[in-house]
């Protein structure tokens, strides 16, 4: 079956603009995670959804970052007033109920110029 799909694969935006990054998890997966991977670093946790609700948003760096998952499937990561330091690869992962591992998408590379 299809894996985790993230769109767009690449996004270039100007400083100060608003962006939305989309994640389509594997069908039926109840848990969804967002991570951010800066150049030369490992992925860093941002937020975790169980169903429609954010179970843990402790990794969001500030209030410019927000994520939703209104129907418990697709999720959107929203970044307001983008800054050059937001440039990174944003990764989405999902896992089914009761699983101990997560399945990752290929990521969205965000470049803020």
């Amino acid at each position, binding site marked *: 079956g299809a894996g985790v799909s993230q769109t767009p694969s690449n996004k270039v935006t100007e400083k100060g603009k608003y962006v939305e990054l989309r994640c389509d998890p594997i069908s039926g997966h109840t848990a969804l995670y967002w991570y951010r991977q800066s150049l030369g*670093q*490992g*992925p860093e*946790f941002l937020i*975790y959804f169980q169903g429609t609700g954010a179970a843990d948003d402790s990794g969001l760096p500030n209030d410019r970052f927000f994520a939703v998952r209104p129907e418990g499937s697709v999720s959107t990561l929203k970044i307001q007033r983008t800054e050059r330091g937001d440039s990174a690869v944003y990764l989405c992962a999902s896992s089914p109920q009761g699983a*101990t591992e997560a399945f990752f*998408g290929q*990521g969205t590379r965000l470049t803020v110029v």
Partner: protein
Amino acid sequence: AQSVTQLDSQVPVFEEAPVELRCNYSSSVSVYLFWYVQYPNQGLQLLLKYLSGSTLVESINGFEAEFNKSQTSFHLRKPSVHISDTAEYFCAVSEGRGTASKLTFGTGTRLQVTL
């Protein structure tokens, strides 16, 4: 809080040679341990995981890792590497509470295999 340390940022090795990629973690609770691999221009893929039971776990492509609780380590080994093993390898830890939870990753080790 949990943390993962991968001391080697790059490991160059000749084909058919053995390799060890080091991973140490710290945590105040029981953990699950993972190795993920990222091939060039691809997403993260699970290579192997330790949940409980036997401390030696293996992947389908010849890698193995051993959980050492006293040394808080989960080093990845392969007795004979192939060119196709060239990739970035990430060690990760999560709380060991029966279901998937957020992962804490190390900074990664780039394995470069040459002829």
